[in-house]
Structure formats: C-alpha cells, structure tokens
C-alpha cells in the first residue's frame, strides 16, 4: 500500500452519524482517524509506537523480495514500468513515515493525545 491517508465513512461519536473520515497510517500501523465534518480525532495510546514501527518496518523489508517477485510474475510489464518510480519514491515515503511516528511519539509523551 503506498498511501498514507485513506478516506472512508465511519460513525462519528460527536456527530452521531456516519461521516467522512480520514485514516492516517505510518507504514502498516494505524495512527489516527479524524472526522472531516467536526474534526474529532481518535488516536491509539501507544507508548511503544517507535518500537512497533521498527518491528513492522523490519517485517516489510523481509517480505519485500517475495512481494516484488509476486508482482513481477503477475504483471511483468506494469511492474517494470513502475519500478523506477517506486524505487525513487521509497526513501521519501520512509522519511515521511518516520516523521509521523516521531511526531506522534512526542505528542504521546507530552500527553497531548
């Protein structure tokens, strides 16, 4: 998955109805869900977020070759044409994820969540 934010419709406890909400991720970890109608934001209180992220990242690296081979076999042309762009974007994506994790960890430490 290459998007860090996904939009969907969930029930909002503040609005009392289903609203459009934005779900943020750092890698495969869910970070927060924000109601786009009233701004209510739900976070998970996780003081182990940096460690959890590091463990998840390790698992992603380990499984990456298998996933790449799988995609190459199924869609060779699409895989080869998109690979250079993906390789270029990957470091930017990882830096962005790490920034998110650091920001959330700092907020957790300060008791802002």
């Amino acid at each position: 998955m290459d998007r860090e934010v996904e939009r969907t419709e969930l029930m909002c406890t503040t609005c009392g109805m289903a609203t459009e909400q934005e779900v943020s991720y750092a890698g495969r970890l869910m970070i927060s869900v924000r109601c786009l109608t009233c701004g209510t934001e739900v976070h998970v209180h996780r003081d182990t977020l940096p460690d959890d992220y590091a463990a998840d990242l390790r698992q992603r690296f380990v499984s990456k070759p298998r996933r790449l081979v799988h995609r190459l076999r199924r869609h060779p042309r699409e895989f080869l044409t998109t690979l250079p762009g993906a390789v270029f974007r990957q470091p930017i994506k990882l830096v962005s994820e790490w920034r998110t994790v650091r920001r959330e960890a700092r907020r957790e430490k300060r008791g802002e969540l």
Partner: protein
Amino acid sequence: MHPARDGRSGRSPRCPRAAAVILGAGSGSRIGSVHNKVFLPLAGRRVISWSFRAMAQVSSIERFVMVIRDADRAIAEQTVDREIDDIPVEIVIGGASRHESELAALRHLEPEIRSGALDIVLVHDGARPLVSPALIRQLIDIAVAHGGVFPGLETDDIRYLHPDGSLDAALVPRMIRAQTPQVFRGLPLLEAYEAAAGDGFVGTDTAACFQQYRQESLQYHPGDARNIKITYPDDLFTAEEILRHAKFRIT
C-alpha cells in the same frame, strides 16, 4: 494447489459444498473517492481480505463472492489481485441496500444452488474482519443439520423502551446481538429472497428474510467476542490490536 486451500484434498464426498458471500457494498450513501470501509488497510491488508483469508481455510467453501458497489470496482479488483489472488474470488455488484446486495449474490449463485452443486450459503459482513475459521466450520455444520443459523453474543444489559420514551426497569431476558456469517441451506434461502423480491419485503439482515418466508428452523449459536464490526474509529484500533495479539492469525 494453493496453500490457503490445502485442506480441500481430504474432503469427503458427503461434505457440504458451500459458498461464502462477503458483503462490501454498504448503504450506497458515499460519494466521490471515498471507499467503503471494508477497503481500509488494517494490519497490512484491506479489511475485507481478512474475511476471505478466514473463509479460505474452511475446506467445504468452494465459491467466494465479494459484493461491492460499482464505484469500488477498481479497488476491489486491486485488492483481489494483490492480497487474495490465491482465492478464486468472484466480484458481484450489489444494490442500494444490504438486502438487495444479498439478492444479487444469490442470483449470481442461482444455477449452482438450483442444480444442487451448492448446499450452503454463508452471508458475511465484510466489515467483520476477525471471524475465525473455527466459528465458520461450526456454523456450517449447524446449517446442514437445521437449515439456518446465525452467531451472536448474549447480552444482559438491554432494556425495553416504551413508545412514549419511558424505560422499563426490568431487564429483557436472553437478548442476542447478532453477528455474521449467517449460514443457510442454499435453496431455501434463495427462495426466501425471491419471494421477498416479489412482495417488496426488505429484511434488516439475512436471518430476518429467511425467517419471514421459511419454516426451517433458525438456530442461534454463540458467536465470538473478537468478531467485531468496524463501525466507529475505535473499532479499527481494537481490530488492529486483536490481530497483533493473535500474531495476525485468527484461528
């Protein structure tokens, strides 16, 4: 043979043949680029993929139907391709309501149901990603024996609300919070839905329609507290936590 389907090789000839219908069409109220919540990433997979993984571990399930709204077709195809390509998922476009989506799936399966090639149909809410293969197997066995079954959790904190808004202090005895998958013999379920279509009846869930039109017994079976439905934002975090504790393998 696919790893997820290894169990099939030992299937007895008398084993029921089942189809899993997983609903991801929703109410149809969403617009634009907002996808159904069943396509949200959850612990490395889309929510709906977890249900297909669980169903694929049950050897008697031979057909896998994903019911979606037309606007989610691209993400549904991508999900199947990337996450569950070892499962032969058939995508069906649903209707504006859950009832219409169920009818669309049953009509898709109609030839096999009528020919007797399919005995059992499971209808599962794609927003319940933590269903266990063990529960699915138990429900299929009960549906074969009795006709229909739905899982649920008994609750002891329900009170009756009078039409004037006043509460009855007495607790309502033996109330069930219904879960899915709801599992039925295929032909009676199809006939119930066709009769409902003729009458314009719309059930709140599969069991409601089945009970309205059929005489077969509808059983209750204790569900699983982990089998939560993603409704509120907190449910996503809870589901992620349950998956993490189960080492990403609900059994």
